[in-house]
């Protein structure tokens, strides 16, 4: 790392800034998680620690629900593994861009690799931005800090959220703002359409498996379309 100090800070802040709009959706989600965890009979300390040990929004909700329902531990572990399978796709996607980094960086960024951090950083990573790992770190850290704070608020104070405002909708809106500029040709649009159609068709599958297989199906479509368009 011979890069000048300000550039690292600038890259880090770029990641933070890319993630900040998602707070609108993430903070209420984290507060509700804290409340749901306590209602499921999870002790406050465990509920808070889960947000840093597991650090995966929807998986933590399912974990809390299954604990509340008295499900066996092995089933809970399996369910969370299935819910988080999609993160393997993110891992594959960012891996080539993190190849030359020291092991401690890979461990740190893997720990921080959530839906939100990935979405915030991937346009920058794909455009070959300098110090992409600092951008991903900034986005991942911002999400981590917000998630911990929101969990703490939910556990300590409970939820007093204006449900009418549908703040959770901020996340899909942000993802739309990230994905639409990536749809630069017909093949990419077709991949998005296949992903949307499969996700809707498979939505009823348990443990968000429909989401994972919809993404895989769309990638298969991308492969087929690439083969066709080759001379």
């Amino acid at each position: 790392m011979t890069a000048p100090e300000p550039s690292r800070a600038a890259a880090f802040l770029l990641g933070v800034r890319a993630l900040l709009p998602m707070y609108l959706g993430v903070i209420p989600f984290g507060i509700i998680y804290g409340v749901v965890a306590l209602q499921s009979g999870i002790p406050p300390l465990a509920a808070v620690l889960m947000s840093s040990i597991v650090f995966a929004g929807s998986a933590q909700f399912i974990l809390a629900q299954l604990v509340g329902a008295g499900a066996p531990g092995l089933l809970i572990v399996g369910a969370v593994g299935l819910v988080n399978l999609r993160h393997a796709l993110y891992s594959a996607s960012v891996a080539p861009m993190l190849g030359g980094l020291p092991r401690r960086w890979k461990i740190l960024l893997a720990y921080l690799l959530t839906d939100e951090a990935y979405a915030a950083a991937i346009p920058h990573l794909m455009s070959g931005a300098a110090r992409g790992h600092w951008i991903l770190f900034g986005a991942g850290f911002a999400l981590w800090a917000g998630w911990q704070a929101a969990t703490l608020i939910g556990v300590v104070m409970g939820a007093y959220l204006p449900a009418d405002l549908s703040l959770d909708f901020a996340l899909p809106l942000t993802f739309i703002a990230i994905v639409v500029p990536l749809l630069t040709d017909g093949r990419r649009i077709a991949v998005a359409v296949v992903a949307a159609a499969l996700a809707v068709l498979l939505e009823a599958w348990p443990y968000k498996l429909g989401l994972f297989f919809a993404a895989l199906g769309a990638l298969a479509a991308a492969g087929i379309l690439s083969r066709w368009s080759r001379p």
Partner: protein
Amino acid sequence: MSLTAVIVITGLLTFAIRLSFIALEGRYQPPGWFVQLLPFVPIAALTALVAPELLLVGGRLSVGADNPRFWAGVVAVVVAAWRRSVLLTIGCGFAALWLMRLL
């Protein structure tokens, strides 16, 4: 299995899934077709994440007047295509959602 064990094991499992391909990088050369598909991952995964939230109401496909999220999503797609601004997209999306609720 104690709650502590469940939390620690699920945490390790989640971390292992996220680390998987990052850890393999450089030690294993994935096949060419795999590498060629990687640029499509953001589109495939993030669209799959968003689509059900826009298109389904109570598990059923709905693109009518009873689904303001779909129309707010349409507005957001148009705004995102027109101006590549995240804040503007969120602002217009929420404005459309709340407006449709009022009507």
